[in-house]
């Protein structure tokens, strides 16, 4: 009994000590009192130096929190209980959030830097006139491959994935829209298809791909491709850029039948406590130098033309990551298909997965 009592007291003392250390650290970083701007973003999706710079320039204190999926982020915002001033959802999530009345309109007069953004990325169907959102990064879905592990195949067409020589060599992303979309694209259908027959046809076609599929995974795809564990992967362009940065053998291609074009935009959730600060932050992030530094750090494609002028020519002229407008015409943005249809996609994807073992 004595030992238990002693242990209990020891634990409590340790906690109190740690609490004071934390309190001290909190104060010494000199940000206990100022107005805070709470930012809710994907992990490692911003250059942390920029946060400090923003704090210095604006006088606001930044509280930075991270999420790992659009859906989880929406659940948090919808339930309330915590106030985020900025969030960075993908385009289909913005549509859903608009429908559920989770966003505040953005006052364009407070965002003079909006003129830095390429007009191509403004006024898109998921948010006409950019009433609720401002572009942050964008990209595509394509195929990253390792020519050193292949005998000369290239991937101008989705069809190349079905090649018999690729047995057990392909990694797919764990996303129903991406994988079913690939099936639809390879048949020449729209990746927003809601036609039952087209979807069934896509599933049948995907089931024939099964022998070639090594695994269906998430973000670990980067590590695996860099380590040359697999020869081919279906992935997002931003992630492909990360991989190619680390392993120069790798190449990236967007098949000509078409693929997905995606956007991550900054929004102000309805629960925002510091709307003024949120606008200041958005405007800050759209500044040419800031956006250029951020794009260099994160490695994704920036929609900010003023920033592109400041960036390395070699990066921004790379058609694989900054495809020209003609090439972009071939790409489709995900429509919000509604929960019912999303359920159908997921059910088909589950069937595909179950067929693998």
């Amino acid at each position, binding site marked *: *009994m004595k*030992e*238990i009592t002693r242990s*209990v007291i020891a*634990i*409590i003392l*340790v*906690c109190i000590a*740690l*609490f004071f*250390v*934390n309190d001290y*650290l*909190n104060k*010494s*970083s000199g940000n206990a009192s100022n107005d*805070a701007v*709470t930012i809710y973003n*994907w*992990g*490692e*999706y911003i250059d942390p130096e920029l946060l400090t710079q923003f704090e210095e320039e604006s006088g606001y204190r930044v*509280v*930075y*929190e*991270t*999420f*790992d999926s659009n859906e*989880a982020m929406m*659940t*948090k915002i919808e*339930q*309330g*209980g*915590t*106030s985020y001033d900025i969030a960075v959802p993908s385009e289909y999530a913005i549509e859903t959030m608009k429908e559920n009345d989770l966003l505040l309109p953005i006052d364009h007069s407070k965002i003079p830097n909006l003129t830095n953004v390429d007009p191509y990325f403004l006024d898109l169907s998921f948010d006409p006139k950019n009433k609720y959102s401002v572009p942050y990064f964008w990209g595509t879905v394509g195929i990253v491959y390792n020519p050193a592990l292949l005998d000369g195949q290239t991937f101008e067409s989705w069809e190349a994935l079905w090649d018999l020589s690729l047995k057990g060599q392909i990694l797919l992303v764990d996303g129903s829209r991406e994988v079913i979309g690939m099936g639809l694209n390879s048949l020449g259908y729209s990746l927003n298809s809601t036609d039952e027959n087209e979807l069934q046809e896509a599933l049948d076609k995907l089931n024939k791909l099964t022998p070639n599929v090594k695994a269906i995974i*998430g*973000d*670990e795809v*980067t*590590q695996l491709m*860099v*380590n040359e564990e697999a020869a081919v992967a279906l992935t997002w362009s931003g992630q492909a850029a*990360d991989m190619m940065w*680390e*392993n120069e053998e790798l190449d990236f291609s967007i098949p000509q039948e078409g693929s997905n074009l995606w956007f991550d935009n900054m929004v102000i959730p309805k629960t925002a406590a510091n709307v003024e600060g949120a606008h200041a932050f958005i405007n800050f992030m759209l500044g040419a130098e800031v956006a250029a530094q951020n794009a260099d750090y*994160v490695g994704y494609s920036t929609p900010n033309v003023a920033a592109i002028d400041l960036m390395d020519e070699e990066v921004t002229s790379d058609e694989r990551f900054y495809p020209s407008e003609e090439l972009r015409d071939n790409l489709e943005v995900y429509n919000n298909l509604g929960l019912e249809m999303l359920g159908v996609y997921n059910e088909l994807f589950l069937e595909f997965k179950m067929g693998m073992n």
Partner: protein
Amino acid sequence: MEKTSKFAKIYLALVFIILYAPILYLILYSFNSGGTMNSFDTFTWEHYAAVFSDTRLIMILINTVIVALLSALIATIVGVFGALGIVFMRNKSLRNSILSLNNVLIVSPDVVIGASFLILFTMIGVKLGFASVLISHIAFSIPIVVLMVLPKLQEMNSSLIDAAADLGATRKDILTRVIIPFIKPGIFVGFFMALTYSLDDFAVTFFVTGNGFTTLSVEIYSMARAGITLTINALTGIIFVVTLLLVIGYYFVSQRGKKPVGLGVRK
């Protein structure tokens, strides 16, 4: 006899090698100047320097430790008394139903627990942050404590308690002098398992946290999309070495000048 003990040693060595292999692998790469876990370039301390210059990361670590220790402690106390309550229940079917309820949180996927706790907290009006995370961690650690304490309680000979009562021991005496010492190994195991649950949890914490409060797990998981930096490896290395030293140090201090003490003592 000689032969079995040699086999035992080899067997245990193998188990320990496997248990520690991934951790040593992580630590090895924390010295990699290459910046990723992919190929080892040259030796560097830079990631360790990065840990100490990142105040935010250190604060998150401290938060994580506070939540883990406090939640495990409280969960152990609640769980031990819960287990006592269950064992002394006369009604067998009631006892079994309570036991089933106890295990619901172990079987439920974290996402479901997280989402329902979030709904619960917003309904009651608890502000998301330290308190909500602590309460949740206590909540999902209680069942494992009960599960670990129960076998010890069931082994306890009830004649032991009757004998103590016959000798005039008060209720408090029976609890602190007879029951608790007997189930102590179970209590410690329960505490350590609760600690494991708390340190490892990502999904539940993710849902119930907010207002700037984060734990290490949440931070690490959300880094996955853009790649986990080796700073985290270095942090893991530090945590690992410190924990190891603390545990070994504590063990030998508590051993010194005392009769065998520790988890499994029998009195």
